[in-house]
């Protein structure tokens, strides 16, 4: 990736670029959802950038941001230029339930990537002609890559034939067997400081669940104050 893409974008588009970041050689720009398509079109059509090679489109879920009133999801677009050999990552923030305009009109390769983001995160793309689930099936409940979707959640059986005793077959219920995930996201979002490890089970306060966050700092201060009060 290269810095000159950011410089060019800032020069040509100005205020549309909200933030820029450079980490370990990866360049990233942040734009508002309303400029999502125009920035993408500019990246593709500008002769100095000519980002003709679609690379990836994906999302990241940050449910804790929602509690602070900020948009919950990051949607990321990765593109590169064949001739110039430079890359850029474009990021936008999307609220839960908010629709993002589709990029299939700019790069047809965004088609399946957007379907996957819809399938996994439940972020809808406006103008996408074929927004169906792609990896999962239509009857699937919830969006599995959201952090508040428990990894061991059991989906209801989809009825397709009459078989007695289907309830006795695996998969078994979530309370059977040992916990599957290290982080109990339900507890974490509810503000409890619990940690689940497959090997050592439930721990409370052993390792800060929210590393370096304000919540964790506040909890640590609270604990210190309580200890000082005891002694």
């Amino acid at each position: 990736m290269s810095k000159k893409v950011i410089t060019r974008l800032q020069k040509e588009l100005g205020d549309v670029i909200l933030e820029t970041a450079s980490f370990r050689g990866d360049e990233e720009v942040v734009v508002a959802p309303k400029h999502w398509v125009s920035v993408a079109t500019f990246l593709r059509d500008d002769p100095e950038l000519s980002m003709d090679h679609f690379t990836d489109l994906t999302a990241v879920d940050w449910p804790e941001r929602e509690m602070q009133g900020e948009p919950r999801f990051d949607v990321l677009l990765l593109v590169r230029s064949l001739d110039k050999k430079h890359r850029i990552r474009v990021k936008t923030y999307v609220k839960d339930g908010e629709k993002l305009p589709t990029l299939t009109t700019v790069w047809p390769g965004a088609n399946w990537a957007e379907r996957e983001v819809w399938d996994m995160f439940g972020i809808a793309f406006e103008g996408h002609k074929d927004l169906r689930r792609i990896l999962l099936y239509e009857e699937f409940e919830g969006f599995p890559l959201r952090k508040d979707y428990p990894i061991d959640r059991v989906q209801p059986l989809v009825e397709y034939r009459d078989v007695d005793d289907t309830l006795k077959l695996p998969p078994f219920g979530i309370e059977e067997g040992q916990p599957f995930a290290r982080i109990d996201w339900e507890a974490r979002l509810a503000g409890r400081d619990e940690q689940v490890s497959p090997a050592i089970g439930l721990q409370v306060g052993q390792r800060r669940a929210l590393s370096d966050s304000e919540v964790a700092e506040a909890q640590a201060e609270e604990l210190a104050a309580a200890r000082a009060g005891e002694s």
Partner: protein
Amino acid sequence: MEPADEILEEEDEALEIPADPMRLNMGPSHPAMHGTIRMVLDLDGETVMNVDVQPGYLHRGFEKSCERGTWAQVFPYADRLNYVSPMLNNVGFALAVEKLLDVKVPDRAQYYRVILGELSRICDHFTCNGASAMELGAFTPFLWLLKVRDWIWDILEKETGARMTHSFGRIGGMAAPPTEGFKDDVRAIIPEIRKVVGEAESLLLGNRIFLDRTQGVGKLPKERALALGVTGPVLRSTGVAYDVRKDHPYLVYDRFDFDIPVGTDGDNWDRFMVRMEEVRQSMRIIEQALEQMPDEGPVSVDDPRIMLPEKREVYTTIEATIAHFKLVMEGLKPPKGAVYSFTEGGNGELGFYIVSDGSGTPYRVRVRPPCWFNLQATREMLMGDMIADIIPTFGSINMIGGECDR
């Protein structure tokens, strides 16, 4: 029996020929398909008018599973992405985390990764080409090419302990140094592989059936391929010389002299030939890497925060015991941030977009599977072709279910 024209005259509506396209389901478990995939075809006679490719039958929740363990626990999952060349996935993920940690593995490990990776690439290309030929009725090349895969697997088994899912990569190096006879073993099979490539080509390239079934079938134009995000041999067959090893060199690929084969039409024939030529180029890389690889030296970084201590130390010193415990129970903790790291996998650009929140557990691991985008382009390759062309075209995409569906 009355002549047909008389029936037509008598009963106008009785013999109405249906004008709608026929809808046909192919898969998800079709005997001539590499993975479990469903295609819903709209057919006009034998011509494919429309096709809906439906992946997802091998979805195991790779990305979700990565979010529950430590960073090191992703390796076995990464193996099972592209199970035809697991070493490339292993190293790809290790490089992503190393980029996040900003560490560079020692030279010896880099060459070791290159050699094992290129051996895996030969496996991958041979499996694809052999299977494609077999689906067109040529069974002997399949056996010839899989013979090579077995030789390579013998070497990989000696090095890693497993024939297929090695889990041999580590963050910051490799699990073990090369065995004593490693270089000789690899040097011994290279001329044999060269011979097999020639033999397999002489079996197929003059075969009329093979030529008819592959040449001009499943074409993909260059511009469409780029816009659809196609990478790897499928993109190179359309005439675009994009190879991550050349365009964005990682490991020590900038130290080798090798060529990027390209096709012209982007048809099945070009994809087959590009893969065959890439095997030759991989062998060139391996030969140069064997020459340059140092015989002595560590294969992992010397950093107790990243690498597990020696087993002997763990049992005898308290420091190593603690370090071991912390690394195993909590996992190594990369700094906060996100990186996109990409390597040339068996099928194209294998990217890992990883996000760390500073804890020992990955916050998000996104795999950019090359197959996913190659498979997306299959629709355009198949439209207008005959139904029988689906099998060779789909075979030449080399869709690997584990990687595509994750």
